[in-house]
């Protein structure tokens, strides 16, 4: 304490600086040009449609979805699985920045970490809308309800997802606030959390895979390679989304980062995309060469079964997009052509969204455990709610970036902010000039 190597602000100063920081953040989050307001209005409208659809679903029951006792999870859980992966992928920015002390990545890492926060919000929304009784959410709260930990993998998921949200909120919040104060962040206050978040990022997607692969009655999911596949695909889709975000910020002139972060992310994707395809090939070989119980779902997914072909177009779209995108990432010409890079990223995101969502969750239920084939098609309500969740996620991400970027740029800082108001001026003058009592 006495010989602190890093100058720390006087603790009592935070009592005034932190509320001012929050107030400034609220201002930054709601200030912007016409484009910003238009963008937020569009997102709000989509979120409104989603909120309304959800209210109808709660009132009338999940019968308004396309789900049934045969296919009892659908689009919501599919979307949940994908967004967990996006959240986990922020770690792909954190590792080079902090583990390998790549300082040029430090500015870009926040773009990834804020994406993780928005993605976790989407995860939590996706599971909430899937509940038949959202009014009983408190039964899931440790200490209040009856938390079936450690037996239920869903309780693990509740812990790791909320923990990851808190970790990232702390890391981002602390770094941004330090910058706002004009202080060098104290490594003791964030580095341990950064290292913890690296492990934690792996855990959120692993636990989510365990949700499915621990079920012996669902042979399609009951595969040890599921968690590695989840991670591999997450580390393709996540960095692709981060590249898109960085390019969009550059295009808007909001936060022009150098080329290095994008180049590094492309390098990461070159490896992870290949690993992803390799693991898929391993899975397909085991399923189709062995045959038996595991085969039915995969056969339905890839080729259809007994006249039912519901998922066939989905999965081949996903496979084509993933293979083409992988080729594009590997081709050196792509890095010189921004539009090709954007196309590859979009293809990856869409491809993996289908593969991890509709291509993984739905075939787990088809054929059912009694080998009946009942197909599933998301209803309009489900699409509306899912779109609403994406809109909400994008709103969260936009607002977080709006707050973070001006502060990281140094345009908004506590000492620049502190223009004493006339009242404050008056008080300080009185303080100085007022004669001491008696």
């Amino acid at each position, binding site marked *: 304490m006495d010989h602190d190597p890093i100058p720390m602000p006087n603790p009592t100063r935070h009592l005034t600086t932190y509320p001012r920081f929050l107030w400034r953040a609220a201002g930054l989050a709601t200030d912007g040009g016409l484009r910003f307001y238009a963008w937020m209005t569009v997102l709000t409208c989509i979120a*409104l449609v989603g909120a309304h659809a959800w209210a*109808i679903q709660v009132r*009338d*029951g999940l019968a308004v979805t396309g789900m049934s006792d045969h296919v009892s999870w659908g689009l919501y859980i599919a979307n949940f699985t994908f967004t967990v992966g996006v959240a986990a992928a922020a770690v792909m920015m954190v590792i080079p920045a902090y583990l390998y002390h790549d300082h040029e990545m430090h500015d870009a890492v926040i773009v990834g970490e804020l994406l993780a926060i928005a993605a976790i919000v989407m995860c939590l929304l996706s599971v909430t809308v899937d*509940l038949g009784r959202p009014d009983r959410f408190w039964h899931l709260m440790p200490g209040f309800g009856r938390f*079936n930990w450690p037996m239920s993998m869903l309780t693990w998921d509740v812990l790791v997802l909320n923990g990851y949200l808190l970790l990232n909120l702390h890391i981002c919040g602390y770094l941004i606030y330090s910058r706002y104060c004009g202080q060098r962040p104290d490594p003791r206050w964030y580095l341990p959390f950064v290292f913890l978040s690296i492990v934690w990022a792996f855990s959120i997607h692993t636990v989510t895979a365990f949700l499915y692969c621990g079920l012996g009655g669902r042979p399609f999911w009951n595969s040890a390679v599921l968690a590695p596949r989840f991670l591999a695909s997450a580390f393709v889709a996540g960095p692709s989304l981060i590249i898109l975000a960085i390019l969009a910020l550059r295009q808007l002139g909001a936060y022009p980062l150098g080329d290095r972060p994008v180049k590094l992310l492309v390098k990461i994707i070159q490896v992870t995309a290949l690993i992803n395809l390799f693991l898929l090939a391993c899975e397909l070989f085991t399923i189709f060469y062995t045959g038996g119980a595991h085969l039915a779902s995969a056969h339905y997914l890839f080729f259809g079964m007994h006249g039912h072909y519901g998922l066939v177009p989905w999965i081949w779209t996903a496979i084509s997009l993933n293979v083409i995108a992988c080729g594009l990432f590997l081709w050196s010409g792509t890095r010189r052509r921004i539009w090709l890079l954007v196309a590859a990223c979009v293809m990856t995101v869409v491809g993996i969204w289908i593969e991890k969502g509709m291509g993984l969750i739905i075939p787990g239920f088809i054929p059912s*455990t*009694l080998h009946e084939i009942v197909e599933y098609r998301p209803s309009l309500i489900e699409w509306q709610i899912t779109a609403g969740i994406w809109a909400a996620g994008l709103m969260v991400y936009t607002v977080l970036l709006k707050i973070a970027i001006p502060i990281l740029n140094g345009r908004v800082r506590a000492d620049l902010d502190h223009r004493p108001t006339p009242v404050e001026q008056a008080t300080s003058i009185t303080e100085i000039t007022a004669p001491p009592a008696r």
Partner: protein
Amino acid sequence: MTETPPSAPGKGCGEEDCACTRRTAMKAAGATLGAAAFATALAPLTEWAQDLSVDQFLQKHYREMSPAEMAQVLERITSDTLKHHGVQISISDVKPRPDVQFGYALNLSICIGCRRCAEACHVENNHDRASHNSYIRVLEMTQGSIDLEQGDATYTHAVPAPGKYYMPIQCQHCDNPPCTKVCPVEATWKEDDGIVVVDYDWCIGCRYCEAACPYHARRFNWQAPEIPAEEINPVQAYLSNRIRPQGVMEKCTFCLHRTRQGRLPACLEACPTGARVFGDLADPDSEIRWILANKRVFVLKEELGTKPRFFYFFDK
């Protein structure tokens, strides 16, 4: 303190303040508009919440309720059923009998696939009429195979069909149930007499148990069940056949409101061929113990290690 620059900051400040106020007012208006829009969008929730009381919201888990609290809940369920369905019910909380272990056996040689068990379940357990729900699904199997993949649950022709045999499937009341393990809130568990139950007032409707069950034994209330008043079975129990709320899981309870009081399950009573045998596995003189000792018995999906309490056997 310093000299005022020529640009007259006083005036500038004033303009800025003005712009700030205007902008703040716009923001406040936008926020109000947004909040109002969200309130309107969420309006259906208020219609839904009309039927929810604070007591219901705060109700404890089945195993944490005192007898007095349970009595209150049963009273509320009785008055709610009268209000919503127009039927006076007699509902109780039937506890397991000491030293009884329930088990079920089904003779595949004489089952004719008439689905009267499924129909009896539908009536006894106050299932939703429109969906024709039942805890029992009867598979028509081809002789020469016990592979479920060859089964068909949607047959409509006269039974028994030549070359076929029939396999009714319901909750297997496993001794190692995958469904109770996965429930995040302990809303489903195995009772002392071996029956796997659901607390319909505690379930959050995540449907993880439905994904975990290898026997398609669980059903979800996708909407509030609808039953004409004259068809409602008024003899009900908290853990079994009372009318379920919307958005929760349900399943076969071995008709515990009957069997725990010495009667037989409705599906057994309805069976015209006597294919079903229900009894106490702990009683060495019971019929079911005789069957386990003397027949060629098997359980479904034994390789999953779920240890079912529902046994199938062949006579010949």
